[in-house]
C-alpha cells in the first residue's frame, strides 16, 4: 500500500514538473492559437465590424458567398439578416494573383536553388564564401529595405531599365506601373531569395555517398544519367521538405506586395495578394468577420495543397536507392 502510494505521488510529481516546464507553451497554445482559431471561425459567420462590435449579427455563410458568389454568377444577395451584401469583386482576383505567384515562384526558386547547390557541391576552394554571398539576398530579402530598393530598381528610369537600355533594348516598360509585369517583379524578388533552399539542398547532397557515383561511372553512366538515377531520387525527401516549406510561406506572402503596391493592390490590382486583400478588408474597411472567413479559406487552401504534396510524394519520393 505504501509502495503504491509512493508510486502515485511519483507519477504526479513527475507530471507536475513536466507540465511546469510546458506551462508557457501550453498557455500560449490555448490563449494565442486554439482560442483565436475557434473565435475566428465563429466570427467568419458574422458581419463583425471592428468599429461597431455591438451590432454584430450572424449571417451564416454570407461571408463565404461574398467571396465565391461570382463563381455562381451572383453580384449581390440578401443575407439572413435582411441586409443586402455585394459580392466582393476583387476576391477572385486576389486568389488568382496568389496562385500565379505561388505556382511560378516556388518551382523557379527550387530549380534555381538546386542548380546552384549542384554547382557548389564540388571540391571547390572558397565554397564557404560563395555560399555566404548567395545567402545575402535571403538574409535581407524579407526586409522593408529591400522592398523599397525593389521599387527603385524596377521604376521606369530605374536600374533594371538602365541596364537593359545599355544592352540595346528600347521601349522599356515601367515594370511596376504595367499590370502585365508588376507581379513578375515580385516573383523575381522571391526567386532571388533562394538561399535557404540552396543550403538545405547542399546539406542533402553531402549525404549522398560518393561510392554510388563512382560505381555508376565505372558502369559507364553519363553525368546526366547519374543525376536522374542517383542524385534526384536520393534528394527527393529534401525536395519534398523544401517544397512544403516554400509552398506554405508563399501563400502567406505580404510585406513585399504591400510596399511595392504602396499599401494597395498595385495597378489594376495586379499585385493584390490574398493576405494583402485580407488586411485591407479587415483593417482598412474594418470588415473583420469577412477577414476571418478569408483567413479560414486560406488555411483550407494551404492545408489542401500541403496534403496533395504529401500524398503525391508516394509517387516521387524515395527513401532508398536501387529500385
Amino acid at each position, binding site marked *: 500500500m505504501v509502495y503504491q502510494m509512493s508510486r502515485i505521488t511519483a507519477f504526479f510529481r513527475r507530471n507536475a*514538473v*513536466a507540465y511546469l*516546464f*510546458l*506551462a*508557457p*507553451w501550453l498557455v*500560449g*497554445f490555448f490563449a494565442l492559437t486554439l482560442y*483565436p*482559431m475557434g473565435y*475566428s471561425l465563429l466570427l467568419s459567420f458574422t458581419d463583425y465590424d471592428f468599429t461597431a*462590435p455591438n451590432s454584430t449579427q450572424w449571417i451564416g455563410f454570407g461571408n463565404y458567398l461574398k467571396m465565391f458568389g461570382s463563381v455562381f454568377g451572383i453580384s449581390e444577395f440578401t443575407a439572413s439578416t435582411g441586409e443586402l451584401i455585394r459580392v466582393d469583386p476583387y476576391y477572385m482576383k486576389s486568389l488568382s494573383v496568389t496562385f500565379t505567384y505561388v505556382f511560378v515562384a516556388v518551382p523557379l526558386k527550387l530549380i534555381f536553388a538546386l542548380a*546552384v547547390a549542384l*554547382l557548389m557541391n*564540388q571540391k*571547390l576552394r*572558397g565554397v564557404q564564401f*560563395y555560399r*555566404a*554571398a548567395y*545567402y*545575402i*539576398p535571403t*538574409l*535581407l530579402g*524579407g*526586409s*522593408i529595405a*529591400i522592398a*523599397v*530598393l525593389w521599387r*527603385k*530598381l524596377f521604376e521606369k*528610369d530605374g*536600374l533594371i531599365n*538602365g541596364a537593359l537600355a545599355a544592352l540595346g533594348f528600347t521601349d522599356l516598360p515601367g515594370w511596376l506601373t504595367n499590370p502585365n509585369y508588376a507581379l513578375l517583379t515580385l516573383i523575381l524578388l522571391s526567386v*532571388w*531569395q533562394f538561399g*535557404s533552399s540552396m*543550403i*538545405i539542398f547542399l*546539406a542533402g547532397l553531402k549525404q549522398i555517398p560518393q561510392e554510388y557515383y563512382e560505381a555508376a561511372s565505372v558502369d559507364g553512366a553519363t553525368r546526366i544519367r547519374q543525376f536522374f538515377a542517383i542524385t534526384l531520387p536520393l534528394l527527393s525527401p529534401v525536395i519534398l521538405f*523544401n517544397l512544403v516549406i516554400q509552398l*506554405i*510561406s508563399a501563400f*502567406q506572402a*505580404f*510585406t513585399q506586395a504591400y*510596399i*511595392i*503596391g*504602396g*499599401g494597395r493592390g498595385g495597378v489594376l490590382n495586379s499585385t493584390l495578394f490574398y493576405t494583402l486583400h485580407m488586411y485591407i478588408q*479587415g483593417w482598412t474597411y474594418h470588415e*473583420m468577420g469577412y477577414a*476571418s472567413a478569408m483567413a*479560414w479559406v*486560406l*488555411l483550407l487552401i494551404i492545408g489542401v495543397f500541403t496534403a496533395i504534396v504529401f500524398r503525391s510524394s508516394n509517387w516521387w519520393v524515395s527513401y532508398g536507392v536501387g529500385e
Partner: protein
Amino acid sequence: MKSGTVLRLSMTHLSIIGLGVLMIYPVAWMIVSSFKPNNMIFSDPGLIPKALTVENYITGWRGYAGTSFGTFFANSLLMCAVAIIGNLISCSMAAYAFARLRFAGRSFWFAIMLITLMLPAHVTLVPRYIMFNSFGWVGSYAPILVPKFLATDAFFVFLLVQFIRSLPKEIEEAAIIDGCSKVGVFLRIILPLASPALVTTALFTFLWTWDDFFNHLLYLTRPDTFTVSRALRTFVGDAGAVSNWGGALAMSTLSVVPAFILFFSLQKYFVQGITTTGIKG
C-alpha cells in the same frame, strides 16, 4: 585529363562568381547609391559614384513626424532584446519537457506543436487583434512581445528539441543520481550544453523581429514607438511614390547593417538553423 579538370573547375568558379555578382548587385547598388547626391541616383546605374555625399544620411536620419531614426533604432533594438529573452526562456523550457521528460500526453502535445509549426498565422490574426485591443495593448509592444514569452514561435521549440535529443544522456543521469532536481538539470546541464542551438534561436529571433513588418504595421500606432521597419515604410507614400529616394536608400542601408554583422560573425549558426528547421526564406 588533368587540364580538362582544371578547365572544368575554372568554368565552375567563373559561373558561380558571375551569377553571384548578379545576385549581389542590387544590394551593392543600394549601398553605393546611398552615398550619391540625390539627383544622381536616377541617372547613374553604375557602382562607382561620380560624387560622394553623406547628405542622404543626414536628411534620412531626420525620420518621420518629428521622430528621428535614432529613436527608431533604439525601439527596434529594445524590442529585439526583449523578444530574444522571451524566446530563449519559453522555447527552451518547452523543448526540455518534450525532449527529456516523461509525462502523460507527451506525444499528443508534441504532435500539436508540430501542427502549429505549419499553421498560417493569419487564421489567429483577427481574434488576437480584438483580444489585444480589449486589453488596451494596441499601440504598445505587448502584442508583439508577450507571445514570445509563451513559446508561440514553434520553430524554435522544434529546433531546440532536436538539439537536446542529440545530447548524451549520461551527464544528466549522473547529476540525478547525485541528487540534482529536474530544474537543476535544466539550468546547470541542458542550457549550457544547448548553447549553440540557443545562439541560433537568439539569432533568428533577432532577424525576424527586426524585419517583421506586418505586426508592427498592425500594432504600432504612434510615430515615437515605430521600429526601423515600420519607419522605413513612411518613405513610401500611400500611392507608392517616394519623396526622398536618397534618404530612403541611406536608412535602408543602415537598417541592414545589424543583419550583415550577425551573419558574418555567426555564420555556422545560420547553417545549423536552416538545415534543422528549414527556416523560411
